[in-house]
Every structure is written in C-alpha cells, then in structure tokens.
C-alpha cells in the first residue's frame, strides 16, 4: 500500500484547513433537520393533514412522494431537499482537496514528500465519507431524541450519508477528468443536477400516472429516498448506494493512475498564437461565458420541468372533488397553479442568487491567484476591471432567469394552449426576482471591497435566504427572521399584485451597498 503512504498526514491537513466549515455544515444540517420534527409535528398533528399537505404536485416535484402518514415519514419527506445539499457539499469538498490542490501546484509540493500517488484522493475521500458518517450518526441520535423510532432514525441517517457518499465519489471521478477545478465542479454539479431532475420528473410523472415514472430509477437521489425511513426501512437500497459509491471510487483511482499529476484525462489542445481580446470586458466574457452558458441551460431545464408539471396540479384538481373544493377556496385552479409557479419562481431566484455570488467572487479568485495584478498594471482602472466582471454577476442571472421564464412560459403555455398569455407573465415573474438577486450580489461586492479575505462569507447571503425559505415554507417563523431575506419582500408572482415600491427599495439597497463596495475596492491595497 505504498501508494497510500502519507494519507493520515493529509487527512490531518484537511481537517486542519476545514476545521470550521466541516463541523459547521454538519451541525447546521443536523440541527435544521431535527428541528423539523417538533415544528411539523405541531403544524400537522393529524395524518390526514399531512397527507393532504404532501399531495400537492409542486411538493412532489420538489421532495418526492410521501411514503406514509407517520410523523417520521412526513418529516423525512419534507426534508427531501437536504440530502441534495449534502451531496453538493460532499462533491465540492472532494474537488476542493484534490483538483484544486493540483491546479494550484500545492499537490506537487506535497507529492514530492513521502506521500503516495493515491494519498491525496484517499485522504479527501476518507475525510468526506467520514464527515458524512458523523452527520448520519448525529442525525440518527437527534431524530431518536425527538421520540422517533430508532431504526427509522438510522435509516434517515443513511439517506443523508448515502447521498453524500455517492456524490463525493462523483466529485472524485470528475476531479480526474479535467485539469481545471472549475470544469470538474461543473461536471460533478451537472451530474447532481441531472440526478435531481430525473427524480423530480420521474416522481411527478408517477404521481400523475404519466409515462416517465421510470426516470426516477436512474437517479441516485431517488435510490436514497426510497430507503423510506420510518416506513419499511429498505436497507438493501443503502447497500446499492454503497456498492455504486465503491464502484465510482474504484473508477476514480483507476483514472488517477492513467494520468500525470496536474493533467486531466481530456488533453489540452493548442490555442491561437494571436489574441483578439483587448479589453477587460473581452477577458471577462472569456472567463465567464462557460459559467453563463451552464447556468442558462440549467435554468432553462428547470423552467421546462416546472412549467411542464404545473398543469398536473390542475389535472389533479379535476380528478378529486374534495381538493377541487379546497382549491376553489384558494382562488380556483388558476390561483393554485399560480401559487405553485410563484413558489417555483422564488426557488429559481434563490438559485440565481448563488450564481450571482459565484460570478462576483470571480473577482476575488482573480485577485488572490495573482492574475488581477498584470491586468491592473495596464491602463485598466480598478473600477473598469471590477465592472467587467460585475456585468456578468448582475446581467448573468438576468439572462439565466429570462431563460427559466421563457422555458417555463413555453412549457406551461403549450400544455394549456395559451403561450401568448403565459409567456410574458412568466418571463415577468422570473425577472421580478432580479432585485433580490442583485441585493445579494451587492453584499458580495461590498465584502470583496472592504474585507477581501472574508470574501467567501458572501455565500452566507444565498445560504441564509435558502434556509429561511426552507424553514419558513411551512413553519411559523418570526417575522423579522423572514424579513432578513430580500426574497421575502418580493410580491408573489405570477398571480400576486406587483407594486413598484418593493422593487425600487430593493434596487436602491443593492445600488447603495454595491457602490459602497466599489469605493472600498478603490481605496484598499491590492492584492490583499
């Protein structure tokens, strides 16, 4: 096992580097999950109310099918999106400690010491898989402490950890494929997104007796979900996930042998001898276009998916007179579908804010990598440089939201035969998210301008807003907590009444914070 020499030391290094963020996400996700038991138990005390709440097609698209009416099953169902977050964190962690290390050249420094060929990958995987295990144990204990059955609590731990393990392994494979960490992340997140879309499409189709129910069987996210904690605890699915994880990890190690340190499996091609770029904006376009294209395609797919299932909400109503009656009280079929679409739009807006922050942080990446220095040593002012990237962090989400709106409008419009009416409505609803997205981008600009070393804290914006969205979707949450999120202040569109005031206030806030950040950038040392 010479190729694993030094793994222990590398694990300690990873634990040292991640000593804050690793415990943080574990504790946070466990705490949120456990808190759902009490909250949802109070809110939906009877099995009937739970089943009724969970039969909304929109929820089925988001979280999957409810396995049964007991509190444990209901809470597990409502937490359906959290394992996806565990998967995302896991794959990012693995790539951060493998490909990012190689790309930065630090791997070489370590590789020349007594560290085996496979040690880096082994250490990254061991840490991530271990973290997921700790998460599973804490979650099982936490759930059991809320008087839920022990076996089911262990099972939900396996749902979380299994998803985390599988996508950690996906991250390990992606990290072998390309020489660029950004591309590796894109590939792995693409697989995660694909798995989620497959599950969402399959489950929605199954619920509406559509022909696409089999799609779910292709999704590892669905495998984990179908362990059905607190129902029949199908342990064998845990073994399936474990086996596929082991298979992927084996592939990753095999791939690692077939390439040089620093290189990817996909070879680098030669580029042009002469450049056509001559401005900061041209450079920024080159650096951002891949990200923009990926997000736009992803948003268009999301739009198609949600636009496509929206009609199912109406179908279900026609079939079931009792639900029909309930929906009519809520404002008829249009009212229900609109509230479903509005919920989708908020979700899409939250995701767009993650893109906005990611694009804004490119500034910090350019600065800390040393690539900003030669640019700023030319006749490019700091503001020009910053603006060239901010074009993409402000307009990029606009393009992606537009794509989501167009796709959703087309899908839903075609389904109900009203493209002309739905398209502009849904485009409007998608773009209405922008002021809130921009507020979070502006916060990232301000942090970058004043506290560049803390730039990563900008992720707190989207994270907090998503958590507020998750927690307050069904549970009573103090008003001031909900008010923290700019998305709370947007009107519910489509369907709701839109007034100019909240938009203008959010835009003004974004403008003030963003400009302050630019002033901070002008006044500070660079690189810092």
């Amino acid at each position, binding site marked *: 096992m010479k190729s694993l020499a030094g793994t222990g030391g590398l694990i300690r290094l990873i634990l040292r580097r991640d000593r804050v963020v690793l415990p943080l996400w574990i504790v946070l996700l466990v705490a949120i999950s456990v808190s759902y038991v009490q909250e949802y138990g109070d809110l939906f005390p009877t099995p009937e109310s739970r089943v009724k709440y969970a039969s909304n097609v929109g929820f089925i698209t988001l979280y999957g099918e409810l396995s049964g009416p007991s509190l444990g099953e209901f809470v597990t169902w409502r937490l359906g999106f959290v394992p996806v977050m565990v998967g995302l964190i896991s794959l990012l962690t693995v790539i951060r400690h493998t490909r990012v290390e190689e790309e930065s050249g630090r791997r070489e420094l370590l590789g020349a010491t007594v560290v085996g060929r496979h040690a880096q990958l082994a250490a990254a995987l061991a840490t991530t898989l271990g973290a997921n295990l700790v998460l599973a144990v804490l979650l099982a204990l936490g759930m059991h402490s809320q008087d839920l059955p022990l076996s089911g609590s262990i099972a939900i731990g396996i749902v979380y950890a299994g998803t985390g393990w599988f996508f950690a392994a996906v991250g390990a494979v992606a990290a072998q494929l390309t020489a660029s960490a950004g591309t590796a992340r894109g590939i792995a997140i693409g697989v995660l997104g694909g798995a989620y879309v497959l599950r969402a499409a399959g489950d929605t189709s199954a619920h509406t007796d559509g022909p696409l129910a089999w799609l779910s069987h292709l999704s590892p996210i669905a495998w984990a979900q179908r362990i059905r904690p607190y129902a029949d605890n199908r342990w064998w699915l845990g073994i399936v996930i474990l086996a596929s994880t082991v298979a992927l990890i084996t592939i990753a190690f095999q791939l690692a042998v077939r390439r040089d340190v620093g290189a990817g499996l996909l070879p680098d091609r*030669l*580029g042009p001898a002469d450049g056509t*770029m001559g401005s900061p904006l041209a450079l920024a376009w*080159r650096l951002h276009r891949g990200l923009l294209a990926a997000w736009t395609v992803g948003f268009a797919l999301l739009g198609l998916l949600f636009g496509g299932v929206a009609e199912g909400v109406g179908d279900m109503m026609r079939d079931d007179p009792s639900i029909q009656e309930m929906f009519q009280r809520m404002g008829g079929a249009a009212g229900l579908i609109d509230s479903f679409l509005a919920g989708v739009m908020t979700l899409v807006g939250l995701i767009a804010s993650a893109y906005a922050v990611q694009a804004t942080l490119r500034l910090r990446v350019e600065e800390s990598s*040393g690539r900003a220095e030669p640019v700023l*040593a*030319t006749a*490019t*002012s700091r503001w020009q440089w910053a603006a060239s990237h901010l074009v993409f962090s402000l307009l990029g989400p606009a393009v992606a939201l537009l794509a989501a709106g167009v796709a959703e409008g087309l899908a839903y419009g075609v389904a109900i035969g009203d493209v002309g009416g739905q398209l502009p409505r849904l485009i409007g609803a998608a773009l209405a998210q922008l002021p809130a997205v921009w507020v979070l981008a502006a916060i990232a600009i301000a942090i970058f301008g004043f506290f560049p070393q803390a730039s990563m804290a900008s992720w707190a914006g989207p994270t907090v807003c998503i958590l507020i969205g998750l927690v307050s979707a069904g549970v009573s949450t103090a008003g001031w907590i909900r008010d923290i999120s700019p998305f709370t202040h947007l009107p519910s569109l489509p369907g709701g009444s839109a007034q100019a005031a909240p938009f203008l206030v959010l835009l003004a806030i974004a403008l003030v914070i963003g400009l302050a950040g630019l002033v901070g950038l002008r006044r500070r040392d*660079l690189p810092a």
Partner: protein
Amino acid sequence: MPAAISTEGLVKRFGRTHALDGLDLAVRTGEVHGFLGPNGAGKTTTIRILLGMTRADEGTTRVLDGDPWSDATELHRRLAYVPGDVTLWPNLSGGEAIDLLGRMRGGVDKKRKAELLERFDLDPRKKARAYSKGNRQKVALVAAFASDVELLLLDEPTSGLDPLMEEIFREVVQEISDRDGRTVLLSSHILSEVEALCDRVTIIRAGRAVESGTLNELRHLTRTSIQAELVGPMDGLAQLNGVHDLQVDDGRVRFDVDTDEINPVLRRLTEIGVRSLVSQPPSLEELFLRLYEPEAVK
C-alpha cells in the same frame, strides 16, 4: 532631466510588521537601476506602491512625474510590469495573454512581438496551464518588452529562466536601455545580471535603503583583503584606521582594509618593507553579503 521614480520616506505597515520603514529610492530617467535586498526586505511592496496597487502609509512617491495612486491608469499606459511569479489564465494561450495585456496597455507592436517570441523561443499557441514557470515568465517578458513604454518595472523577472534565456533577457534589456533610452527598475538576486545591466543600484534591507549608487561607488564601501610577506617587524599595523581581522604568522600578515583607507595602510607596509603582496578587490558577492547582513544597518 526629472527622475523617473522618486520616493521619500515611504512607510508601509501590514498590521504590526513594517514592510517599509522610511524608504528613499531615486531612479534617473534612462538608467537601468538595480533594486536589491534580501527576501522580505520590501522590494515587491515598493514596486506595488509604484504601481498604485498598494497605498503607502507615509511618504511621497512620484512615478513619471505622476502620483501612482491617483493617476494609476494614465501612468500605466507609459509603463510595463513583470512580476516575479507570473500567473496566467489557464485556458488562454500564451499569445492571447500577450496580446491582451499589450492591448490593454495601449497597443502591441506585432513585429516586435514576433521577434521577441523568436528570441525567447516561446510557443505562443500553448495554453497557459501547460507552460512551465520559465515559460510563464517569458509570456510576461514578451508582453512587457513588446509595448512602447517609457518605464519597465521588473520584479525578479528572470526567476525560472534557463541561462540561455537569461542571456537573451540581458541583451534585450541592454537594447531597450541603449537604443530606446527606456528606464528600467530591475529587482534581482542575480549579481552577475545586476553587474552586467545596472548603471546604479539601491540596496534595501528591512524596509529602508542601506546603500545607493553606482557599483564602483559601492565597492568603496567594502574592504580589500591583503596578504603580504614583510621584511621588518610589523609594529603599529593593528592600530591603523580601517584595518580589520589582522592575522600574523611568521613574517606573513593577512588582513582586510576598508577600501577608502587603503593608501595610508599601503604606505605603512612599504615603510616596513614588502617582500610580496597580494591584494584582492572586493567581489560583488562579498559586498552584498556584507550589506545584507543584519549588522549592516546600524
């Protein structure tokens, strides 16, 4: 002619550490000025202040008769910069990076670029992530030398270059200095490079300039080592000004003498009577070692 660069009393603090502690630097227009000092002496911080990327806490800075902090953009049209550790965009080819930096500075001379690529033996089609450190350095050098600028700020520009390329670098710097009359501030650790290229040098240590002048002037600051076989008794040698580390061994003496005290010492030696004499002028290495040592600053 006005100075290309002048700083007075520059102070820059990072938290508690004083990166610069009252630095004076004067670079005359048209000269190649060596900028030397041990690691961590503040060379890169100084160059960042000259570029307007970092703001000094105290002191004044003029670059090409402008304020580098407030006039950064205008000044940058007239200067080029090569960092010691060049990082490039991994998915851009070297040629693209050269043209990009050149155009953002105000234009690239195509012919000059082709000539420099040829001389530095650089394949501009390779993606930056495939370049070695030396080749990344060449990209920055070609981009800087192909621009029509008055001032070049070079921060350990030859780190990672092989000796052949190092030679090309010297040729090019000499050309742009002699033929085009450009000003160069060259931070370097390579003494032969400094000796070959620089008209004057400034040596900094712990954030202040300890010496500044031509290399000949600096040589006077150091000691010549002398070995002699004498005829008579060697009385009074140890008491002479400027004599250090005297060793006497059976009619032979060996000592170092401050270069500006050499005349009286030689006079005394000839009075005693010299059978043989070996005098060794100070090497640059000795000069720098002495100036780099912590005791050099009193």
